[in-house]
């Protein structure tokens, strides 16, 4: 599979969207799906469907095996030590809620601190915010620097003897900054602080190695990773999954149930209550296979080239102001245009089939800090090309004409 004409693996690009070719620059929001993934869902539902883990008939056994195969694929993809460290969730949001809720319940006391960063997505802030109310925990925010980065120093500065958790993004969905997770984890562990990483924006774009990063928790959204909607992954070191209390309660996560009490099931069942996203998990194996076939190294090279080109093009356009200038930038370019609100930009771009996102991208704290209420964001997937940035740029020029900017 050659990455240069990989668009053809994604059926959505075969169709015109309102008479335009689709220039999809909204992958940080959610990625498009390759045909193999959609086909797998179709085949599973039409030829092989059964619930997993519960019945002993043929279809149920087959489905259960396929479901567990995905767990192993994910384990290998992120180089986790053990397949039981992979828990399927509704999304990254649920994964982070799971950790905040169970860790908070068991380990946090009034006055304890959780250290976040100013880059965090609401999904990596609101779950911790709950602990302020329920547990009297304090939240601290590491400051971004002028380039929109979080450095080891900015983290170090905010660590106190009360810090009981560091929760931070791997790749900012606004500034595109890639955070130095490995050294941050080293520092944190030297002070006995566990680290949760929001890997939503990194998992589809970077080669991941849990054992190298050594973080305690890692949250992933499958729909941003060429997978189905409604599925996420929590990676957690086994000792945590063993020590933490269960999260949601229901069928499948128990060992024995009596009127007086309950014993919980083994890992990873303990954290997979109720009927899970059978079809989505099974289809996600194809997303992983797809990424493996392309090769994460190729993905990274391809996207690096593109993002450099994109920066070049937009920097030449003197109305455009890029947000952040991180040395190590992932597949995200956010910008503003003086005299135009991002919503107006997005609407005008849309008329040309250029799909970007406008708003605060669930990062109000960051936008506050930057003195903005909103920004425009172009974000990449494997299917993007330089041509997409050229089209973005010419649509931006159209914006300027309509708004009579120079």
């Amino acid at each position, binding site marked *: 599979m050659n990455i240069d004409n990989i668009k053809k693996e994604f059926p959505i690009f075969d169709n015109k969207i309102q008479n335009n070719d689709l220039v999809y620059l909204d992958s940080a929001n959610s990625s498009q799906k390759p045909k193999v993934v959609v086909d797998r869902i179709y085949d599973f539902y039409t030829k092989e469907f059964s619930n997993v883990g519960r019945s002993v008939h043929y279809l149920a056994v087959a489905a259960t095996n396929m479901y567990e195969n995905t767990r192993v694929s994910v384990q290998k993809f992120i180089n986790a030590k053990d397949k039981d460290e992979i828990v399927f969730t509704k999304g990254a949001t649920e994964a982070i809620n799971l950790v905040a809720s169970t860790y908070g319940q068991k380990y946090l006391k009034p006055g304890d601190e959780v250290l976040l960063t100013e880059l965090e997505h609401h999904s990596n802030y609101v779950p911790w915010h709950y602990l302020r109310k329920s547990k009297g925990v304090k939240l601290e925010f590491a400051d971004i620097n002028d380039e929109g980065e979080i450095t080891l120093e900015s983290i170090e500065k905010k660590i106190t003897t009360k810090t009981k958790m560091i929760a931070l993004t791997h790749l900012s969905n606004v500034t595109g900054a890639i955070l130095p997770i490995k050294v941050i984890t080293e520092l944190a562990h030297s002070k006995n602080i566990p680290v949760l990483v929001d890997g939503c924006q990194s998992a589809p774009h970077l080669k991941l190695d849990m054992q190298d990063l050594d973080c305690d928790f890692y949250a992933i959204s499958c729909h941003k990773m060429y997978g189905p909607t409604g599925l996420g992954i929590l990676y957690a070191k086994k000792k945590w999954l063993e020590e933490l209390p269960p999260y949601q309660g229901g069928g499948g996560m128990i060992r024995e149930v009596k009127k007086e009490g309950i014993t919980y099931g083994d890992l990873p069942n303990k954290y997979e209550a109720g009927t899970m996203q059978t079809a989505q998990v099974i289809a996600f194996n194809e997303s992983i296979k797809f990424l493996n076939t392309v090769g994460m190294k190729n993905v990274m090279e391809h996207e690096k080239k593109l993002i450099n080109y994109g920066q070049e093009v937009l920097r030449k356009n003197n109305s455009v102001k890029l947000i952040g200038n991180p040395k190590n930038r992932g597949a995200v370019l956010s910008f503003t245009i003086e005299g135009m609100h991002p919503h*107006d930009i997005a609407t005008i771009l849309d008329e040309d089939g250029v799909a970007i996102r406008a708003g605060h991208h669930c990062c109000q704290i960051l936008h506050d800090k930057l003195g903005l209420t*909103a920004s425009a964001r172009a974000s990449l997937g494997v299917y993007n090309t330089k041509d997409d940035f050229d089209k973005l740029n010419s649509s931006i020029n159209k914006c300027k004409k309509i*708004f009579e900017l120079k």
Partner: protein
Amino acid sequence: MKLTELYQEIILDHGKNPRNLRKTENFNKDAKGYNPLCGDKVHIYLKLNENKKVEDVSFEGEGCAISMASASIMTDLVKGKEENEVKEIVEDFLKMIKETDQINTKLLKDDEKTKLMCLSGVKQYPMRVKCATLSWHTLTSAIDKSQNEINSEKMEI
């Protein structure tokens, strides 16, 4: 091209140079509106006199051309109207945007109606309808809210 319908001269003008973008002194009613999707905010200030007539109305906020123009035009048009008349105009505007494409109220003059109709273009852009209606809904909240209710939007700390 549909875009020119949306971004008419008058919208761009009000968008760039919004009228009544300030805070009324001695306002006696106010309300805040948010669009959680994009982060747009508007804060409406109303000063009603003893006859429930709008002596002054103003707004603070930040948003796209559509939302700024909408707030700007709205505040211009309801000044001097009575509370009930304001409500009628708001209702008529919201109906126009969502359904009818027509301004029917007798409370506005023809040139005022024309101004409002400039905003009808958003109907083609469903995600932008909220931009156009935010300030209008907020005006309604300001009128309807008793003093204690206004505090109900307090942050959970």
